[in-house]
């Protein structure tokens, strides 16, 4: 995971709509938000935070193309080049018969490639068993906003007040 050392203000919200509306309000007021943690996906939150759109789809497409080429190469080479055989009166290389396996391998490569990319890009892995750093309740019922004080020019009190005004029910300080 990314290095989180520093001092943070942690706003704890009770409701997904509240936090979704708080984000643009705080950003407008000049607060730089590090990240929001929630127990389920909130639509539009990543846009509100200004996160760039994920490019994982491009990776998925590339993996799919790889799978497709792998399958066709495998079948054309084994059936048509390495040991050509006529089976059922068909050409040694008969592409229509290769469509099912080409499809299956395209799906297989896309799914696995994409999921592995997902794990790597999020820094997820089996060795990293820790609780959420900012508030453990963010996997249960709370919506947690982390603000890196080192990256904000506003004072702690100002941000804290802005968080409370935007609907946060608690504001805590975390130091790593």
């Amino acid at each position, binding site marked *: 995971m990314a290095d989180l050392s520093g001092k943070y203000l942690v706003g704890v919200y009770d409701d997904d709509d509240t936090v979704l509306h708080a984000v643009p309000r705080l950003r407008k007021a000049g607060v730089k938000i590090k990240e929001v943690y929630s127990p389920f996906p909130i639509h*539009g939150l990543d846009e509100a935070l200004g996160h760039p759109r994920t490019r994982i789809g491009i990776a998925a497409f590339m993996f799919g193309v790889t799978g497709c080429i792998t399958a066709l190469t495998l079948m054309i080479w084994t059936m048509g080049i390495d040991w050509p055989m006529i089976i059922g009166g068909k050409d040694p290389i008969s592409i229509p018969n290769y469509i099912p396996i080409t499809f299956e391998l395209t799906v297989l490569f896309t799914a696995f490639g994409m999921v592995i990319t997902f794990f790597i890009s999020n820094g997820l892995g089996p060795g990293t*068993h820790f609780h959420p750093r900012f508030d453990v309740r963010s996997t249960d019922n709370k919506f947690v906003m982390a603000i890196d004080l080192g990256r904000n020019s506003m004072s702690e009190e100002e941000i804290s007040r802005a968080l409370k005004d935007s609907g946060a029910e608690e504001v805590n300080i975390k130091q790593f």
Partner: protein
Amino acid sequence: MHVTSPVREPLIQGGKTYADVTEDICRHVEGAPTKEWKIAFGISLLVLAYGSVCLAWTWWEGLGVWGLNKTVGWAWDITNFVWWVGIGHAGTLISAILLLFRQKWRTSINRAAEAMTIFAVICAASFILMHMGRPWMAYWALPLPNAFGSLWVNFNSPLVWDVFAISTYFSVSLVFWYIGLIPDLATIRDRATSKISRLMYGTFAMGWDGSAKTWSRYEYISLILAGLSTPLVLSVHTIVSMDFATSVIPGWHTTIFPPYFVAGAIFSGFAMVQNLMLITRVVYRLEDYITLEHIETMNKVITLTGSVVGVAYITEFFIAWYGGVEYEYYAFFNRMTGPYWWAYWAMMTCNVISPQLFWSRRLRRSITFTFFISVVVNIGMWFERFVIIVTSLHRDYLPSSWAMFSPTMFDIGDYIFSFGLFFTLFLLFSKYLPVVNMAEVKSVIRSTSAQLPAKIAGVAKVRQRGTAEPVFNSDKE
């Protein structure tokens, strides 16, 4: 902008809050196994043990212990294989196709249905290994270089397509299921009190923290996985049907097989989901999560797919007559009136007539009746495969080789093995993993239920949920 009609019943009842969802689902994972669970698990293990002995003997002695003969070379093995694969299809339909259609009711049942898919495919695969007779040669089905003792596999054969289809289907379903489990495993990890469960759930939760960035990627890959799984699930049963349809056996050689098999698969799969969920919901007290609405909706799917299957049976029969091929005609006439007439009529009654009873609202909202019909449908779908396989084979072109098939105790014992395996795996799942997808259920509570937590009233935005007016919220859909 998203409109919630006040007329529609909320998906999750009982005015649940987010914390309630966590508590209701995690309770079963965290508590000690109940007496009922232990008894059920003990019975499953006994069944599995008996089946394993039968299976061990089948492999030790050879396939001669089955009731097969030189005319009927496929019988219970392939019947059971197709039956289990078909059952698996409902899980993918619920988790993938209903995700693409934005059917939010899927959230309460998708986890368990997908687990069912995975276990059913494992059972199906076990029959592939069984019918090989020499399972230690199973790797011959893979495209290995000629030096391994065989030629390259024949990529023109649907049986080889099946190897790729089933293994892709299994592994992609497993990945899809696991991705959905990660946020819930993180929830359990963060509540865990014992060291061992913190370690286990923590390891499998992969350090999930639920940041907005992770969630947006998660939703994105879920959508792509659903988009991939949808054609995948259709391709799997299509290819299974081609195992039959590409051979020149009267009764198998028909172009209607792929859509007809896929509809049958979803039909039997939903029946199995009903059976499992009706028990789980009572035992785990999930009546607020899996409501009568869910049961009714699934019954509608059963009626739809059952009708498709019924139309397919009739079409197939009509074409056998209209096509004018006498062997084809005889195969179908023999199914209906020949020595296996009882299997044919069992299939027709269970699959064509019984789901039509769900046109009655009272019956499709009756839990006992739903459970009964679901069992009937699964019996009917087993007979469908038996009819297709055995009655097409037992009277071939040469009357001198006509034969009958009757199962031996090893045919039956190996089928029992798959039940033991399935229920053992399902019981382990239902004890050690959350049976309902907590994260997804939490995400549908607010947009579908009328509950209004008192705390947030007055904050940021005035809410008007639970009033008679249509409710607008700003969820971007």
